[in-house]
């Protein structure tokens, strides 16, 4: 079987604007889009450029705009898409080349929310205790692989790239609700801001896009109410 693979191409050393190119690529029924891209690169055009690594949805390298929606190329199978596949870089992020976007800004926002345990009491001896119930509170947001599918699917981010974005909030949530953490106040202050949680319009594109099935909007609203109850 063949599919028609449309790729949005852009070479900053040659092109002034992105353009679409179409390839006919042979596929197997269980192929993922990543396999199809790889095959196109190997057989048809070695200059097709995209990131990938783990090939099974755990590293977050290959989030792309596939048939109009953000998803991981290695996690969507060809048979779910039909005979025509279109692939473009993540919307709203600066394009470096072809399907590769500049992630520095994204990781900068991630780093800005203090995404690490703040518990600076002196080195204790043993492990800290935490009940399974306390752990369950933030379980969902520990799953994030920083793929940027959510942030770049968010209309609020499209409108205002200064928005810290769902991914950063998810990672702040992971610590704010960790019973061992003491940095919640500082994080809530960082997020209580026009470009912080208040820019979320409960659009749910992020949730639909998240390959890890994280209920991002819930996390954002939990952070909002934490700010609210802090006053």
């Amino acid at each position: 079987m063949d599919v028609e693979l449309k790729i949005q191409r852009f070479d900053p050393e040659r092109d002034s604007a992105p353009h679409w190119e179409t390839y006919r690529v042979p596929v197997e029924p269980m192929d993922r889009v990543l396999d199809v891209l790889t095959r196109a690169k190997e057989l048809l055009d070695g200059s097709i450029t995209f990131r990938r690594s783990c090939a099974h949805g755990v590293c977050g390298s290959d989030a792309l705009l596939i048939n109009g929606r953000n998803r991981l190329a290695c996690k969507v199978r060809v048979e779910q898409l039909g005979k025509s596949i279109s692939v473009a870089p993540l919307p709203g992020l600066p394009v470096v080349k072809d399907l590769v976007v500049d992630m520095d800004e994204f990781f900068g926002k991630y780093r800005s929310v203090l995404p690490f345990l703040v518990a600076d009491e002196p080195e204790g001896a043993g492990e800290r205790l935490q009940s399974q119930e306390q752990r369950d509170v933030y379980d969902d947001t520990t799953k994030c692989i920083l793929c940027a599918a959510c942030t770049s699917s968010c209309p609020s981010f499209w409108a205002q790239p200064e928005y810290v974005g769902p991914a950063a909030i998810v990672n702040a949530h992971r610590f704010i609700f960790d019973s061992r953490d003491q940095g919640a106040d500082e994080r809530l202050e960082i997020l209580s801001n026009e470009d912080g949680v208040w820019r979320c319009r409960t659009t749910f594109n992020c949730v639909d896009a998240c390959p890890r099935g994280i209920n991002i909007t819930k996390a954002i609203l939990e952070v909002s109410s934490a700010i609210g109850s802090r006053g």
Partner: protein
Amino acid sequence: MSSALQAEAGQIDVDAIVIGAGGAGLWAALELAREGIPTAVLTKLYPTRSHTGAAQGGVCAALGNVEEDHWEWHMFDTIKGGDYLTDQDAAEVLAREAIPAVIELERMGLPFNRTPDGKIDQRRFGGHTRNYGEGPVRRSCYAADRTGHMILQTLYQQCIKAGVKFYDEYHVVDLLFEGGSADQGGRCSGVVGYKIADGSLHVLRAKAVLLATGGYGRAWRVTSNAHSLAGDGMALAWRHGVPLMDMEFYQFHPTGIVGIGILLSEAARGEGGYLLNGEGKRFMETYAPKLMELAPRDMISRAMYQEIRAGRGIDGKDYVYLDVRHLGRKVIEEKLPDITDFARVYQGVEPISEPVPVQPTAHYAMGGVPTNLETEVLANAAGGVVPGLFAAGEVACVSVHGANRLGTNSLVDLLVFGKRAGKRMAEICKSTTAPKHVAGAERAIREEMLALSTRPEGVRPAEIRRALADVMMENVGVYRDETLLTSAVKEIQRLKGEYQHVRVEDTGSVFNTDLLEARELGYLLDVSEATAVSALARKESRGAHSREDYPERDDAKFLAHTMVWRGADQAPATKLDYKPVTITKFEPKPRVY
């Protein structure tokens, strides 16, 4: 034309360089930051994309949180699991230091699953036993089936907190030496990094360089490994006269998704999953009556092959079933959520109601760059070190895994030896002088890379890569023999010849993955050669290395680590040496479970 490649290389001076931001590299960087050593971490992927994040099952430490356990038991299991090729002093370090390492991870914020009284929960894992082999023990600390993900995230988070300097998407293309290559007594003095974003070269000088680049599973066709795992660190060191050790020991994990190799963690069996053959029988009864499905991986992979060869695969085909149905929805969804998802997405199988077809998949390199207990790279079998060069993680061979690694011990390895690497490098940085600047240090590698991207015509790298993956799969797989290995060595040599004419289509400077993949293929060819040559020379069966022509373990001749050096220029590798195994507490015994 690759203009950026030709531009003058940037110069960066630091005290320490860490290549790779997986678990091993990150912990080393953290330790260096704590000591205040100016450090650069170079990684060809964003740190959170490193393959440590794919590890699922857990990390073993004899915490004894749920039942009695002792580090000596862990040490014994590691040695026996490694078929007595494990260096016992290293296994002792591993088992002892696993305990504080896991506790420290918890204190850094890692979200472990918890026992009812709030401690780190532990579960069973293959080959980990109570009281020197009596039965399975609950030793593996875990966070659902995302333990590696949590370790990677937690260490990266701590590095951010400590202000570690990362060079994200810098591909290290060469190591620099001062005073000759490693076999001539030279000192490692830095690296050349290729900035993927714009194709420029950068020379970084340092007193201590750590290889933490992970494994090379991509040499095989069916593998659980990421595309990026091409043996970079091993090949780069090998090219500078560093030997590679125990390369013939490559682990095939029994439960990969049929055809594509994605891993379904041993945690599935740790929680109580069964393996069934075509007759619906738990065939491990015949091979390991005591531990059954929790026997070490090499044994299970071989057992699966035996079943398949005897026509007892599912419908006579080349796979068997992993069955978790009896565990019930709750256990499956709460303790094994990711692998459940993998089965659904990649196989269209619903593990709650159907058995999952599995087959062995190339998984883990027990061998690698030889090091001592302080992670200093060894130059020879006598134990002399290469000054300035360190290795930790899957790229290294300490050797704690011997001839076969136990499940979870790789993560322990990263933590324990990553940390040791950071500590030792800090000491070295404080007591040595900085290497001298040499103009044009990057010249050789620039020529090499320009040659790749300016050759007007030639072979496509993909063709060579496919041929290599095939020969490694068919000839250097679970079962091997003289004929298979001889022809593998020959074929790899032929492919190396073809590689001299490989051509890259993309000639640009910006994000040229075509060029980098071609380079990675070069690394793969080197480490595959080392693997096949070492395997051919080891005429016995031990751990993951099963020779059908030599089915018995031969302690008289082969209770030793293989070391292999690269041939000069394009010549095949012929120089081998053997380094004795360190035995402290446990005399080698037959390995039955």
